[in-house]
């Protein structure tokens, strides 16, 4: 058994002249929550459909839970739960019947599995309601319940927070975190909502124009989330000498001196005093945090 729940090798998908996914190499470790970020049309859903064997790659290979995802619907689907794009259900069937349909097709005879996910996704009061009468949020819950019905080892979720109210978003986030941490479920979730991914994912992949342009592991994410002191003076060279002699380590980014030591962040007044005493007072001194959003916008060219 490999360490990876998902592996793609040069995954490429073309629709006519449109290159939707461009030689993507994904490695998602077992037990991690992988956030797949991208703008609308970046290639997230196409990648997910390829992972689930719904579309055939133009080039490259896909492996899910050590099994090649091949044509003809071959794959380890008994161990994979999924939610793709907008939620859908048979409108004439009740919530319970929709879940029973999925349960039957998964070959699960025990009907308590349906009851379990109905309770887990807070659908008890809607269980006997026809799916056609559900709100978008509850349809999304039904979709998530269907994904969890067979207690899968891997969840592939496309925009799982879509249509949920703020409380629902928090609830689903906690549910996914619990599944990953307590049950070792691997979660691969796509989103264009950065805060959602930022709060949940242990690793993030950014897809832009079909290409996986960056992967941020736990360390890089922690770095992104960390504070830093940014300083600008009229004479940055003199300021660097003053700070160096005071024992501060720093980096220079464009025309800004960046210090990431905890002491400097907690005592910016000390840094200011050193520069003032050196006759080179700061014209800007601020504790900043580059968040995922800034980073994402920078990478994707401000989203254009």
């Amino acid at each position, binding site marked *: 058994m490999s360490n990876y729940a998902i592996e793609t090798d040069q995954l490429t998908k073309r629709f006519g002249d449109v290159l939707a996914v461009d030689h993507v190499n994904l490695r998602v470790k077992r037990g991690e929550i992988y956030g797949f970020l991208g703008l609308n049309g970046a290639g997230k859903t196409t990648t997910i*459909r390829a992972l689930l*064997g719904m579309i055939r790659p133009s080039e490259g290979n896909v492996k899910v839970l050590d099994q090649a995802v091949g044509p003809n619907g071959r794959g380890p689907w008994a161990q994979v739960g999924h939610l793709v794009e907008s939620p*859908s259900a*048979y409108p004439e*069937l009740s919530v319970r*019947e929709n879940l*029973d349909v999925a349960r*039957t*097709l998964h*070959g699960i005879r025990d009907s308590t599995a349906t009851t379990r996910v109905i309770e887990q996704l807070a659908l008890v009061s809607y269980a006997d309601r026809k799916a056609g009468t559900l709100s978008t949020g509850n349809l999304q819950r039904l979709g998530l319940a269907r994904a969890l019905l067979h207690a899968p080892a891997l969840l592939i979720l496309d925009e799982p927070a879509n249509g949920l109210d703020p409380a629902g978003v928090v609830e689903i986030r906690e549910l996914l975190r619990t599944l990953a941490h307590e049950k070792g479920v691997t979660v691969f979730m796509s989103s264009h909502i950065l805060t959602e991914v930022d709060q949940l994912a242990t690793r993030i992949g950014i897809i832009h124009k079909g290409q996986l342009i960056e992967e941020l592991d736990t360390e890089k994410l922690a770095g992104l989330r960390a504070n830093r002191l940014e300083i600008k003076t009229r004479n940055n060279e003199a300021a660097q000498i003053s700070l160096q002699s005071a024992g501060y380590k720093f980096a220079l980014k464009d025309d800004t001196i960046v210090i990431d030591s905890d002491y400097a962040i907690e005592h910016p007044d000390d840094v200011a005093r050193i520069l003032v005493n050196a006759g080179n007072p700061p014209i800007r001194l601020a504790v900043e945090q580059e968040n995922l959003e800034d980073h994402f916008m920078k990478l994707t060219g401000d989203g254009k």
Partner: protein
Amino acid sequence: MNGFLSALRVEILKVYRSKVLPFTAVGFSLIPLAGGLFLIILKDPEAAKSMGLISTKAQITVGVADWPAFFNLLAGAVAAGGIILFSIIPIWIFGREFSEHTVKELLSLPTSREAIVSAKFLVTAIWTLALTLFLFGVGLVVGRLVVIPGWSTELLRAAFSDIMLGAVLTLATMPFVAFFASLGRGYLLPFGWTFFTVFLAQIAARLGWGDWFPWSVPALFSGMAGPRAEIIGLHSYIILILTGLLGLGATLYWWRSADQTR
């Protein structure tokens, strides 16, 4: 086949809960009911004359008010009209999965796509034959109520086998309807295909090539274009069966291989 019985159970549940099932039953019951109305008109020629057009229509459609003519009407409706009427079933069974975007829930499952498609075809067949039985039953009740002559057990047996066989022949044209519902990912293309084949069937029959054109065979079998034995032969049945198998294969292949982006 992996999970066929599971898929069958699911398809039966979906049909059982749908509004399309009673809709088709009501639709099909209109055929013997309309036939019954024509019988009433034909039984009373004086009243028929005073009714103008409808009596002419009744004479063309049923001819005389007796059981053989009435059974002929039902057989013709099933075999010829069935190409349009029965097509509603595969169009709904296959097309709805795309128009309601539920197809994505049927693709990455331990139950194979072959099992799902086969179950859909079996349910199409069961539904079609059940509707034919229903039509036949309503026809018997209508004929009894109108009280028409010419009844015999032999006639009943012959009419039953003709009507059911006509339905089976029509059923053989349905796989291509399912294929176009899948290919077109919805309802429009298969309806277009159905009307196109009916149109071509008329032309083929008029040109005398109906025995070679699969979509003309059920109507020719029903005797709508004259005595069946003179027109269609073994080659007609073989072509029809091959068409059905080709449609089945094409639909299965499409579900296995096509990109599913709905």
